């Protein structure tokens, strides 16, 4: 029995370790080779670099306008997620508390479109951004993300509000709170757990979204991290040391974010998926 258990352990941990190595392989190769000179890389792609040089990083940091691209991405994700949370919490709360035919209709209206693939609305959406002069505007794009993201968030808020006792709102109303004050003082703090989930899933979505900015943003000063990386990849077609250092720089913010908030992220991901 003991021996059988040992063999099981070896098999399972062997499998997991092999899978972990495959998973980390591209990241480690990119990291390792980003410190090499072009000559070193030509000689061997799997040897360790002879010294840790940051020359490639200095080169690409400027070339991809790293800080500007990072700032643009932060603004876009921050404002986008802020709008999604504010708009959806307002709507999700009232939709749950109002029992009329209109509320049923609105909830269905918000939810049904979750089926529509993004590439199906991409071209008309491009035209809308042209007509509203939102092309190349980061704030405008944040509103577009709000429009695309409210469905899911309203659905989640609506479900969560059901678990909040009505008495709290009634007590607030008796104390003379208007509906808006009740929302901001009583309801919004109670929504915190689901707000955290919505915040995490949407930050990751907007941060890593590529197609929408690719279509809507053409001004290189408004480029997100992904767009800058993509452009740099095109410019340095075979200069791998430059490209790899750019890829590491582009991946760095999410890796740091992951290291800091791992627990919340994994919890948010599984909750967001299961309830959606």
């Amino acid at each position: 029995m003991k021996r059988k258990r040992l063999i099981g352990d070896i098999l399972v941990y062997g499998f997991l370790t092999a899978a972990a190595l495959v998973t980390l392989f591209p990241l480690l190769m990119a990291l390792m080779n980003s410190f090499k000179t072009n000559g070193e890389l030509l000689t061997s792609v799997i040897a360790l670099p002879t010294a840790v040089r940051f020359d490639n990083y200095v080169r690409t940091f400027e070339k991809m306008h790293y800080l500007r691209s990072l700032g643009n991405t932060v603004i876009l994700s921050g404002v986008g997620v802020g709008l999604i949370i504010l708009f959806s919490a307002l709507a999700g709360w009232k939709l749950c508390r109002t029992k009329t035919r209109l509320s049923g209709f609105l909830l269905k209206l918000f939810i049904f479109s979750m089926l529509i693939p993004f590439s199906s609305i991409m071209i008309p959406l491009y035209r809308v951004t042209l007509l509203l002069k939102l092309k190349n505007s980061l704030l405008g794009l944040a509103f577009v993300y709000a429009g695309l993201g409210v469905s899911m968030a309203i659905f989640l808020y609506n479900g969560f509000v059901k678990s909040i006792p009505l008495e709290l709102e009634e007590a607030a109303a008796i104390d003379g709170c208007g509906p808006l004050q009740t929302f901001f003082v009583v309801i919004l703090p109670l929504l915190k757990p689901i707000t955290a989930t919505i915040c995490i899933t949407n930050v990751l979505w907007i941060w890593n979204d590529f197609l929408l900015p690719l279509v809507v943003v053409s001004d290189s000063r408004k480029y997100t991290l992904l767009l800058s990386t993509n452009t740099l990849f095109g410019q340095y077609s075979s200069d791998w040391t430059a490209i790899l250092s750019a890829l590491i720089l582009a991946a760095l913010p999410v890796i740091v974010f992951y290291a800091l908030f791992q627990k919340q992220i994994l919890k948010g991901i599984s909750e967001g998926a299961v309830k959606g």
Partner: protein
Amino acid sequence: MGSRRHPNRSLLLFCLPALVVYALFKLFPAGAGLVYALTDWNGLNRDYDFVGLRNFAEIFHDRYYWDSVLFTCKYTAVMVVVSNVLALGLAVAIESRRRAKGFFRTVFYMPNMISMVIGGYMWMFIFTKVLYYLADNYGMKFLDRSWIGDPRYSFIAICVVAAWGAVGYLMIIYMAALQGVPRELKEAAAIDGAGGWISFWKIVLPMIRHAVTICVFWALNAGFQVFDVIYALTGGGPGRATQSVAINIYEEAFRGNIRYGYATAKSTVLFIIVLVITMLQLYLTGRKEQEL
């Protein structure tokens, strides 16, 4: 209290901000797409004319479009199976042991944090540099393939990278579901003489059916919309051999032709395909759950 007497008025006020952005950036484009699909609108002329169903008639004969549909179906079928089997396998393996759970979970989920564009370019380095190096210097001749240039192998390359990105996400969902399976049930089965394999099929899998549905549904949806991985790895090439529908539509609209009307018609057909598959799946899973 206005909200007491006019519940709908206060409801509309609270929904207004969400409704405005939703209508502008989702509902209107969805509706307008159906109209544009009937026009010859392009990026060159300001005006456009209605051409009836001519765009759809053209799609019917557009070999490249149907090739991309076929490619997308093939890709989706492979991804639904491969990513779910791998994710469930990893989740079961991690949950079956006591030690190093957190470490493996952290590692396997990491690729999901990184954009598939960045991940795709990192893998491009592996496929175009590292594998050749290993083949030449370590005698691993089976790695000596044109992974990006030959459509047979680039399909494999695309699936490898896409699975690398997706498996961690599905694994997290499966792990959460597995933790919900009561330990007593498995112990009872073991006492009744059920081995690990039987207890997995007869007890664990039925208990996590809900998670399987979620993950299959997610993989189907993600498969039909695939863009980033292919854009980064092959750009749809060589030629058009690895074009997904999303890449095909993007090229029609924003590269070369700028035929917006025709591209919109293509995206309408994509929507109909996705809708049919979703309905079919909802119908099938609904029926299965009634049976049980």
